[in-house]
């Protein structure tokens, strides 16, 4: 590398805590610096009357499978009709991961790591999830999942509204909500910032050779004030302060470090891909690894979004989906182990989302956009089981699995986990179908 690259706090692990850097003094003096203590949403200082105050210790992880995950090959009905619809893409019954007490369904073989979670009743399968008038366009569907206002465009996302409804006293904390990957419109809010970390292992400020890191960052930080007016220029200035602030707090979390639960097979220890299963270093595994690190460091993050791409399997689905779901199974399984190891298992709820499922009938080597899909809900707080069941004999008028469970039911459960509010954020009460214990 041509430059001297390091976390500018990397003068020693204690620097963050003791704040020896000159710029740290600047940060402490700035009124905007939010405290790094957990939550703060303890009933005081929500800026808007709400029916809930948020529970400071709870964490929600939303894993988005972008492109429209094929629910029918994820939670697979063991029926003849399924094989009629999918003569080539249909998974062989014997290959499916068996679900105890649920013989009519099996999981895609790549999801074997989730079998233990099912047995422990920490895995709920939500089948036929979607909106009544699904658009089947990625963008319209994503929009409706992000906003939770189907058919109506919104400037806020469902989690953004939750952030606004539970914002604690003092300056809003950009680390309350984090996306691993690009920023998500689900976090669009009126008052609440959030942090996007595109590359967890590269999130640090560089220093030119020969230049004092602290001094340079302190100088850069000066760009952030004074601000004039309230337009994009001001937002750009604020983003400078926000970025430096966030980096300081994340410095010790070492997001890019792959924890033991997520590790690749170690040839020196005699492990191989086959003994450890086929290791897939995909978006899910790397994203959830960073999420686990973030949770383990207790920085006050309450919402983490991880985006995994590639699920738009119009062609070549057999191989592609097998690899993608291997990443999901591996990543989710490892994540649960990691948060258990750090003592956070009881704090965390993980849900998966995807903008739609895919057509029931196969089309060539893949499937086209469909309607009702499948979500997973994972955690010690989950009431395990299957909710909804695709009725392949009663597909909708486009030949798709119907959406019988409204997306907002899933969101209501997620928001309840966070301590609410729910109906204020979603506009009305939604049945959570007993997803939480």
């Amino acid at each position, binding site marked *: 590398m041509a*430059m001297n690259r390091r976390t500018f706090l990397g003068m020693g692990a204690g620097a963050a805590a003791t704040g020896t850097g000159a710029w740290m003094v600047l940060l402490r003096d700035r009124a905007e610096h939010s405290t790094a203590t957990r939550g703060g949403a303890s009933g005081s200082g929500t800026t808007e009357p709400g029916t809930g105050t948020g529970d400071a210790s709870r964490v929600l992880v939303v894993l988005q499978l972008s492109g429209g995950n094929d629910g029918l090959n994820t939670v697979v009905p063991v029926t003849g009709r399924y094989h009629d619809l999918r003569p080539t893409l249909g998974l062989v019954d014997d290959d499916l991961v068996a679900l105890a007490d649920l013989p009519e369904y099996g999981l895609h073989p790549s999801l074997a790591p989730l079998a233990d979670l099912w047995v422990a009743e920490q895995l709920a399968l939500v089948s036929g999830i979607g909106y009544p008038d699904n658009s089947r366009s990625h963008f319209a569907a994503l929009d409706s999942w992000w906003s939770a206002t189907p058919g109506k465009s919104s400037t806020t996302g469902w989690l953004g509204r939750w952030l606004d409804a539970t914002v604690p006293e003092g300056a809003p904390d950009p680390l309350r909500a984090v996306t691993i990957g690009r920023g998500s419109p689900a976090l669009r809010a009126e008052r609440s910032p959030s942090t*996007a970390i595109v590359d967890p292992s590269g999130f640090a400020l*560089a220093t030119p050779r020969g*230049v*004092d890191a602290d001094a340079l960052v302190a100088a850069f930080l*000066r*760009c952030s*004030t004074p601000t004039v007016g309230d337009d994009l220029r001001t937002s750009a200035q604020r983003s400078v302060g926000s970025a430096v602030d966030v980096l300081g707090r994340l410095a010790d979390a070492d997001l890019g470090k792959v924890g033991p639960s997520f590790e690749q097979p170690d040839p020196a220890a005699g492990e191989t891909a086959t003994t450890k299963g086929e290791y897939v270093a995909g978006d899910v595994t790397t994203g959830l690894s960073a999420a686990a690190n973030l949770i383990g460091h207790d920085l006050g993050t309450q919402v983490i979004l991880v985006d995994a791409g590639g699920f738009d399997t*119009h062609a070549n689905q057999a191989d592609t989906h097998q690899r993608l779901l291997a990443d999901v199974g591996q990543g989710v399984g490892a994540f649960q182990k990691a948060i258990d190891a750090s003592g956070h298992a009881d704090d965390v709820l993980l849900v998966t989302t995807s903008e739609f499922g895919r057509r029931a009938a196969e089309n060539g080597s893949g499937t086209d956009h469909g309607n009702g899909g499948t979500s997973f809900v994972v955690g010690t707080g989950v009431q395990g089981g299957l909710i909804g069941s695709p009725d392949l004999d009663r597909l909708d008028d486009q030949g798709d699995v119907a959406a019988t469970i409204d997306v907002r039911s899933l969101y209501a459960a997620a928001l309840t986990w966070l301590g609410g509010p729910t109906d204020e954020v979603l506009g009305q009460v939604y049945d959570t179908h007993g997803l939480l214990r």
Partner: protein
Amino acid sequence: MGGVDDRTAIAWLHRRVGLGLAPGELDRLVPLGVDAVVERLLAPDANGVKKEPDPWAPLGLTYDRDNAREQAKAAIAAWIPAMAATPRPTESWLTWFWHGHFATSIAKVRFASLMVEQLRTFQRMGAGPFADLLRAVTTDPAMLVWLDGRENTRDTPNENFGREVMELFSLGVGSYGEADVAAAAGALSGWTLQRTDSATSRLVAKRHDDRPRTFLGQTGVSDVDGVIDAITAQPECPRFVAGRLASAVLGEAADDGLVSDLTTTFRAADLDLGVLLRAVVEAGLARLDSRTGDLPPVVVAPVPWLVAALRATGSRPKVKVLVAELRAAGQVPMSPPNVGGWPGGAAWLASSTTVARFNLAVEVAQATASDAPTRRAAAEGPDDELADLLGRPEGFGAATLAAVAEARRSNGPEGVAPLTVALASPDLVVA
């Protein structure tokens, strides 16, 4: 009394429909006057402007699976310095704009040879009739791979392109129905890539479903020409395209009223993109020139921002390192996240992007020659000269001036720290 002087207007043009300014470039252009500069930018051929050299011709790109990754990296790496040195700023900018609009990713297309053919199409046809451009994109080999056009056959129809061509490329959501998607898929079926050494596509008759269909209200549509004709005949088409281009150049100033006017002009010109672009530029200049002399700011995306920094400093750091940081910023050329392209606006103000821009600024500043005008002005001032060299003759804001002054007091090679801060400042992130 006009709102701004020629220097400011010309700099604005190079920020919004160009890719920045090289040292001394503004000094050479200002005496020509704004109108002449507009002509040079919008009609380079007619004004004897040097042609854009092809950065990919020397690479000898092939269709070799074994070194596809290396060739992809080389093609991306070649594009960045080429943009920074372009003799045709608007043509180059427009190629970049169409690349974001018809967003196609090398991650799936795989072969740089196909990707660069698509970019060359944008360069050749980006300011001509929209119908011709859309038709070329529809049968473009990279696009056939990207949106599965080559999988779309009579026996196994694939609707991916048929949907996106309307939703994202020409009409917008809500301007078509599901039946139209199916009809488009049928009419466009049968295209495939030529399996030779050139990036060409062809129609295979026996894979083509030539049954006439009703598509967007037109009957008897059974092939590419019918699809393109029907799309471009829709009233939504000029509005959608005009809206996209106007927003990119004018930001929030592209309100409904302005877009309506531009749509009328565009339609009257048979959807000629050159006419549209000229009208957009003139609208921007008129607003700049008005009593208030301002335009709402737009956020500059990481790639154009970096290109402008490279052009202004003359710096040429290792492209490999630049690309790694662009990945962290969320924007690598030839790799949009999906067919919707890169999200714009405030999405580029996320912490990740801010950190990556700073790191890119470090790279650029460090590799800037010590006697380069930007580095000298960063080291010793005056500040208004530094701002002018970085494309802002109107000067930096107070906060950035304070930041640069403080950076001058830090150690290290002369000018590197203040130049880093200036390049990474919000004044250049928002134009």
